[in-house]
């Protein structure tokens, strides 16, 4: 269990460094999504299942959807029509 903890903590730091360094904004948002998901697992390790449920639904779900929609609105997604 302690090994998993270390892997997750290091993974969090790696994701946090990587997320804003990604060249494409879409990749940055997806890495941030992975960050949130790791956070959710970490919270269940910290014995707070309430937080884990909320974070999984909020961080990886709703926040990312909002980011994607904003990306679409500011024309930062490839494959959408730019006029």
């Amino acid at each position, binding site marked *: 269990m302690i090994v998993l903890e270390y892997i997750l903590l290091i993974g969090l730091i790696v994701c946090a460094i990587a997320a804003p360094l990604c060249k494409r904004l879409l990749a940055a948002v997806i890495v941030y999504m992975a960050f949130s998901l790791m956070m959710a697992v970490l919270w269940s390790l910290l014995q*707070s*299942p*309430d937080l*884990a*449920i*909320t974070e999984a*639904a*909020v961080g990886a*779900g*709703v926040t990312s*959807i*909002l980011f994607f*929609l*904003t990306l679409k*609105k500011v024309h930062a997604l490839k494959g959408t029509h730019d*006029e």
Partner: protein
Amino acid sequence: MSKKIDETSGWLQRFAAWVDGDREPPDRTLLVMERRPHRDFRPTEEEFERREKDRLRKFFNWYPIAATVICVVMAAILLTTVMNMPGFGDEDNPINNEVSERYLEHGAEETGSENVVTAMIIGYRGFDTLGESCVLFLAVAAVMILLLRDEKNTTGRELHQLEREEAGAREHADLILQQVAKVLTPFIFLFAIYVLLNGETSPGGGFSGGTILGAGVILFSAAFGVQRTQRFMNRRTYSVVRTFGLMLYAVLYGIYIFIGANGLPNHLAGMILLIDLAVGLVVACTMYGFYALFSRGEI
């Protein structure tokens, strides 16, 4: 823009003008300098622009260095502080004091909720959560102010493009998304309702259940389009449900004040459940409202 607002006009008009930002100070001599100081040297346009650009460039040269220094210094200070904190996971840490002990020992019998986190959020610190729900309510209102479409801020081209996009989405509906959503949506709703209603005995409660419920509605709306979502969630239902949730919470807390504000007693059976439901409705509506406003600009 500057309408002449004088003392004689009604307070409503003056208030409206103040909100619009074009109120003129009643006593102008106080706030407006009577005469500008004479300036001998007036830079030409190019000179001015060059100087401004120079200033901006200088700012952008120095800003990263200063920001990095601030960040590093702050991280170092925090790191040294953290090193001196009491050990992680120790039972005798100062944070584990009599408050949490009392919650753990008496929470179940005093509030009727076996999950102490729910008992704390809804029972002991319910006012905190009431303010929280108000914050969510206001957040949706703020996003509405920014993104809601109406005749004033929408051009015909935008409207046209939106219509075209919707038509395109209807024609080329994503088959994978629809099939997956068809299978998953009932289970998501079921799980959301389970989490929402079982906040007393298992992990979950208003916030978790509400977000899952909102995510389920979002998935449904993304897969099957606006029309089918608006069958059960149009603008009117949305605002009614949202306000109803907050009002239910406020009324229940009014009762709570009335009976002494000493924790919700467990002889009012189902109180925690009702408040959880109210919070869940508010949170779910918030999540769906964000999605709808971001994607279409209307609910």
